[in-house]
């Protein structure tokens, strides 16, 4: 399998702050990759750079061999590279079904499709995906009334509704009660295996990331300090010093 995402020597500065420095990483098509690192190490900045929230200062980002570092956010999303947010972002005053319906990729997308009707088939698909994340009973509630954890699940379902090729997940299990976490891990593995979506996951929960990811990248103070299989990462002295803590 080839690479779906290639990040090549990316630099991003905010004034004097070196948020990302010389980051290079490759995510293989169809894999689950993890991104770990202490708070403020530049993980979310890297996500923002990849999806085009802000321009990068140097380097190149290729998605399916297409340069995306200069594209605006909606254009990158249309290519099939989606992200979810650490602080959930949902449409609070719309109910869950509407949240899902608006997330589907429209069949046509041009000036004349602004007033196109939303096909009814989407409702079935939305309900199916909502039950996939366990929110079927909540489907008629306003998304803003859901709890934080439920909103995280809704955000995942919304991303799936768009049928992306690759998903960047920013802490999918943060704020979710421990009994649900196993369920989420299973769901993410299913998403990867059944829907064929490549995943890149930021996660602080070591148990989650070690059992989920096949390849892990570790950032610290804006630099990539290690990458490899979970077992290698666990033993890597630099990662232990910077992040896991000396035991």
């Amino acid at each position, binding site marked *: 399998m080839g690479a779906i995402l290639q990040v090549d020597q990316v630099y991003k500065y905010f004034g004097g702050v070196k948020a990302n420095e010389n980051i290079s990483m490759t995510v293989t098509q169809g894999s689950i990759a993890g991104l770990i690192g202490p708070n403020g190490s530049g993980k979310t900045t890297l996500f923002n750079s990849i*999806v085009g929230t802000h321009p990068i200062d140097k380097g190149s980002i290729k998605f399916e061999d297409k340069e995306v570092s200069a594209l*605006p*956010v*909606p254009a990158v*999303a*249309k290519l099939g590279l*989606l*992200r979810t*947010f650490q602080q959930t*972002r*949902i*449409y*609070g*005053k*719309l109910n869950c079904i*509407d949240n899902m*319906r*608006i*997330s589907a*990729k*429209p069949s046509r*997308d041009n*000036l004349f*499709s*602004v*007033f*196109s*009707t*939303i096909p009814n088939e989407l409702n079935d698909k939305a309900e199916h995906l909502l039950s996939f*994340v*366990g*929110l079927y*009973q*909540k489907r*008629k*509630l306003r998304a*803003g*009334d859901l709890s934080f*954890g*439920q909103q995280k*699940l809704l955000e995942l379902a*919304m*991303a799936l509704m*768009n049928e992306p090729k690759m998903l960047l997940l920013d802490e999918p299990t943060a704020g979710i009660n421990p009994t*649900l976490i*196993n*369920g*989420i891990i*299973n*769901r993410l593995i299913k998403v990867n295996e059944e829907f064929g979506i490549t995943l890149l996951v930021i996660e602080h929960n070591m148990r989650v990331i070690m059992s989920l990811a096949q390849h892990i990248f570790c950032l610290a103070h804006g630099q990539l300090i290690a990458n490899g299989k979970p077992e290698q990462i666990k033993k890597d002295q630099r990662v232990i010093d910077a992040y896991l803590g000396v035991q």
Partner: protein
Amino acid sequence: MNQKAILYLALLAFGIAVPFMFPAYKLQISIMWILVVLSLTWDVQGGQMGYNTFGNIMFFGLGMYICSSFQIGIFFPLAEWTASGGEKTFIHTPTQFFQGFFIGIIFAGIIPALVAAIIGYGILGLRGHYFAICTLGLAIAAGELAGGIELVGAGQGMTSPPWPKNIGDTELRSEFFYYICFVLMISTFLFLRWAYTTRFGLVLNAIRDNEDKAEAMGINTMRYKISGWVVSAFFVGIAGGLMGNMIGYIEPVETAFAGRTFGVFMVVMAILGGKGTLWGPVIGAIAFHIFKEGFWTFFLGWQYVALGALIVIVVIFFPEGIMGWLREKYPDRFGEVIDEEDRKAQVELK
């Protein structure tokens, strides 16, 4: 037949019968339909999309000037008409009047819509307060600019073509404009009712709730924001054209770019009725117009005090407007199913 259809038919019948039932109030009720249009179209931005605009009055004034300019300019030299002030040196024949009116109204919709597309491309990237302030500035600037153009009478204003004398009295005139206003209101309402069921409506709501998320999900939000403003400008422009004809005299700051009156009214009406709903702006506009006319008639001199008090009361006691208040009281009437079991249901993933 269901309840909704009966309601719609009853309202339609009422609208058609008004000139016969309340002949003395034809002009007032025509203005009420105009206010409904202003409030409905303001709600596209302010309510559905969450972009508070003070600039929609700009399209109102623009439509007013464009409509009258076309009505006159097609048949007579416009500069001479405005220079003569109130003196009627040129008289429209009935055919000329109606041809001019028809063409004027069409352009009164199209040109503001184009202007909205161009300006919107420039400023709809602004968000929140910045957008509000920017549109406020544009609306004021538009009034000042219009007051400086000699061709349309500058600060002195211009008269719109008078009703042709030899086809009937002023009764016929007010009936004619009444029905045009009524048709405009119905078309605006039906168009928006349909538009809100399409992708357009859902995307506007998504922009209101979280624009960054909508972009992150691949929605070209700019396209929808501009489309929304174009729709508003089109209907507001036509409303302006009609208003200019009904009043008969266009003054740049007081009637055309009347930010202090109509510009504020459209915001108050939509909020009073309940922004972000279809019926809210309609109910708000009707309630507001009745309130306003009552005060203007019986407590002249106190009307702005009353308007201020109304704004305060609405903001404090009905922040969600009449519709929002009703929705809270009778959620089941609004199709909101509050199922306690569903609400309390545990999320389980196995």
